C-alpha cells in the first residue's frame, strides 16, 4: 500500500511538469535495429505512395465517370420532396437544416451545428432523423432498428443524407465552432478520440492520430490535423464498393468502434455527434467534394 501511494504521488507530480517522451525499448542491440530500418524503410514509403496514388487516381476517375452514389442522391431528393409519414408532410416544407426552412444547399458543410429547437448539436444524419420523427411522425425506434444499408436495403435516411450532402458539393466546410455549444461538443469529441480502452487498448487515435500511416494498403488520415480530417470526412456519404452499399459517417464511426473492439455506439447518439464535430470542424476551410466512392 505504501508503494501504491508513492507511485500515485509520483505520477501526479510528474503530470504537472513536461511530459516525458516514451521511447520504444527493444531488447535487441541498437545497431541491429538501425540495420533493419535501413533495409525496409525506403521500400515501404515508395510502395505506399505508388499504391495510394493509384487508388486516388482511379477513385477520382470513377467519381468523374459516374458514382453510383448519384443513384441514391436522386432517391433522396424524391424522399425529401414527398409528403410522407403519419403527419403526411414533406421534409422540404418542415425540416430546417440550419439555414432556414426550405434551404438545403450548403447545409451539409455547416453541420454538425446547434439546433435550438432540439437543444442539441446534431450532425446531418441525426438532424434528418430528428425531422423525420418530430415533423413527419416516424418512430425513432423504427428508424434506429436498421439504420445502415445492407446489400439489398438502403434506409431512407441514408438516401436523404446523400441528397443533402450532394447539395454542398464544391462548398467549404464551415462548422460553426464559434458557437459555444458546438465548441463544447468539439472538445468532448477530442476526448472521445483519445480514449484508449477495450481488449486491444485501441483509441481512434491509435490509427488516426499521426500522419502517414497505413493499415494494410489503406491510408490512415490523422483526424487531428486539417489535412487528415479533410481526408477523413471527404467522400462521405460514400458508395462502398465492398458490398455495394451507400453508407454514411454515422455508419463509419460505428464501424471504426467495431474495429477498435469497442461496443456499439448508439445510432445518432451524442458520442457519434461529438466525434463528427471534432473531425468535421478540423476540416473547416477545406472544400467538400460531394458524396464519394469508397473501398
Amino acid at each position, binding site marked *: 500500500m505504501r508503494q501504491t501511494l508513492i507511485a500515485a504521488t509520483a505520477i501526479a507530480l510528474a503530470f504537472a511538469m513536461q511530459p516525458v517522451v516514451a521511447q520504444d525499448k527493444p531488447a535487441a542491440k541498437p545497431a541491429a535495429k538501425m540495420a533493419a530500418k535501413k533495409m525496409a524503410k525506403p521500400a515501404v514509403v515508395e510502395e505506399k505512395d505508388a499504391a495510394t496514388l*493509384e*487508388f486516388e487516381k*482511379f477513385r477520382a476517375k470513377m467519381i468523374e465517370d459516374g458514382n453510383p452514389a448519384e443513384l441514391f442522391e436522386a432517391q433522396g431528393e424524391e424522399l425529401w420532396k414527398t409528403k410522407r409519414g403519419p403527419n403526411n408532410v414533406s421534409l422540404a416544407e418542415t425540416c430546417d437544416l440550419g439555414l432556414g426552412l426550405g434551404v438545403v444547399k450548403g447545409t451539409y458543410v455547416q453541420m454538425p451545428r446547434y439546433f435550438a429547437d432540439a437543444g442539441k448539436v446534431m450532425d446531418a444524419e441525426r438532424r434528418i432523423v430528428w425531422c423525420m420523427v418530430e415533423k413527419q411522425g416516424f418512430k425513432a425506434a423504427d428508424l434506429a432498428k436498421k439504420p445502415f444499408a445492407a446489400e439489398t436495403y438502403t434506409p431512407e435516411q441514408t438516401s436523404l443524407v446523400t441528397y443533402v450532402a450532394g447539395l454542398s458539393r464544391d462548398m467549404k466546410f464551415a462548422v460553426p465552432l464559434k458557437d459555444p455549444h458546438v465548441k463544447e461538443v468539439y472538445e468532448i469529441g477530442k476526448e472521445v478520440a483519445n480514449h484508449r480502452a477495450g481488449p486491444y487498448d485501441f483509441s481512434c487515435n491509435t490509427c488516426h492520430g499521426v500522419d502517414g500511416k497505413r493499415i*494494410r494498403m489503406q491510408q490512415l488520415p490523422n483526424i487531428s490535423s486539417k489535412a487528415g480530417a479533410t481526408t477523413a470526412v471527404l467522400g462521405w456519404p*460514400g458508395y462502398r464498393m*465492398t458490398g455495394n452499399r451507400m453508407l454514411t459517417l454515422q455508419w463509419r464511426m460505428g*464501424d471504426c468502434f467495431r474495429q477498435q473492439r469497442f461496443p456499439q455506439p448508439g445510432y445518432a447518439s451524442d458520442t457519434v455527434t461529438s466525434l463528427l464535430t471534432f473531425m468535421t470542424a478540423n476540416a473547416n476551410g477545406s472544400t467538400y467534394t460531394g458524396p464519394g466512392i469508397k*473501398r
Partner: protein
Amino acid sequence: MDILRRTVLKGASASGVLAAALGAGLLKPTQALALDWNKAAFEAKDTPAAMKAVGAASAAESKDLKLTAPDIAENGAVVPVDVSSGIANTISIAVFVDKNPYPLAAAFNFSNGAMADVAVRLKMGQTSIVRAVAKTSDGKFYTASKEVKVTAGGCGG
C-alpha cells in the same frame, strides 16, 4: 452483334438496319433488346474458348488498341477499365478477364457516330490479365491486355 456473330433481330444482321427500323417507328422499344444473349461466349470457362465463341480466335496485338486499368485495384469488385481503339473502322469491342470463372465480361457494338471508346467497371476475383478485343468492319480482330493486381483490403475507407 458483330463481335458475337449475332443478329440483333432475325433477318436484320446489321445494326444500321435496326436503327433504320427504330427510326421508322417499326419497333417497340423492348423489341430492340429481343435478341439472344450469347450464352456460349458468356459461359465459356477460359479466355481462348470465350474468344472463339465470339469469333475472335486469332487476334493480333495492337498498340492502337488502348486498355487503361489500374496496376493495383483498390477493390476487385469494382475495377474501372477503359478501352479505346485508334484502329480505323473499329465496330466492336469485347472485354475479358482471364482468371474470372467466366472470362467474357461484355461486348459492345458501335454505330451511327459512336466512337470505339468505352468505359466499364469489372468484377475481378483475383489478380489477372484483363484483355480487350476489337473488331473492324473488314472482319479483323486486334487485342491488347494488361495485368491488374487485386489485393487484400484494410479496414476503412
